[in-house]
């Protein structure tokens, strides 16, 4: 997956979001090994210190586990991943609903648009 950064937001938070996405989308499945920090930094074309910081935060959140001798891997706890994934979904939907509210749509209208769209797109 190509990395993509906006320069008006901290690279650190964007790295966290993008690594989370890779975990959620099974690019890095549960229990899989992550490449060394340096390689990941090089691939993303960011500073290794920034990559290190992002990985430490993900470790704090429990999505990534550090092994003393053999680098880092994604947690094997699928529940943990599911929880984080749900939280991301809720955040995104909250943001979406907030936007819809500003556009003047009420609950019924939003739901009916979503229903008809998902029928059309067969999601």
């Amino acid at each position: 997956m190509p990395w993509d950064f906006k320069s008006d937001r901290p690279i650190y938070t964007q790295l966290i979001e993008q690594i989370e996405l890779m975990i959620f989308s099974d690019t890095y499945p549960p229990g899989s090994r992550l490449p060394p920090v340096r390689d990941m930094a090089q691939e993303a074309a960011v500073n290794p210190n920034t990559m290190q910081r992002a990985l430490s935060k993900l470790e704090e959140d429990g999505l990534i586990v550090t092994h003393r001798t053999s680098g880092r891997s994604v947690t094997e706890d699928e529940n943990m991943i599911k929880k984080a994934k749900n939280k991301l979904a809720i955040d995104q939907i909250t943001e979406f609903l907030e936007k819809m509210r500003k556009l003047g749509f009420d609950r019924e209208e939003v739901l009916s648009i979503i229903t008809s769209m998902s029928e059309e797109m067969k999601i």
Partner: protein
Amino acid sequence: MSTILECKGVTKAFGDKEALSDVNMNIDQGRIIGLLGPNGSGKTTLIKLANDLLTPTSGEIRIAGMKPGIETKKLVSYLPEKTYLNDWMRVHQIIELFMDFYKDFKPEKAYDMLKRLNINPNDRLKFMSKGTKEKVQLILVMSREAKLYLLDEPIGGVDPAARDYILETIITNYKEDATVVISTHLISDIEKILDHVVFINNGRVVLSSSADEIRNEKGKSVDALFREVFKC
């Protein structure tokens, strides 16, 4: 973390014009730092002071605790704004020269990078384009395993594709305990790899901050902030 470059009240005057006025800063090991300022702000003067090419009018500058001189030159890999290499020389001859000069120079690294950038080691500097010459110089500088890299405008003359490669080279070649100081005004190209930025204007440090802190607090890129601070 220990300090690699320290400036204490550094002032440098040329005649009655102060190029640097009371500059104070501490730069830690293991960082990539952007020294950013408009033309004539004092970036090159500061880098020259750190290389013992100029001496401060007052104040002091320390590299790993030492005054700039022979000992610090062993630790510092410097890319000057203008080339000092003889242009009749072939690239491999310059590599041999660097091997003689610097203990920490890794010729295999240099040959590897030359290959990646399609530069023939048998070519003479004289017959190279401006951009290719700059690439050669940067390759030489980054092939040393130094503690401090001082790069004065390293990407000004090279094309965007080579710029990306050069930034990649900087990221991969520097060791965890080494510091890279990049002076430039081409901020958008390099800001992704910077830990910390120092803005300098009229010989004074006007801002020193972590790059992500700027994006976080101001909601704008380092480049956008620079344009705002130095609006003409």
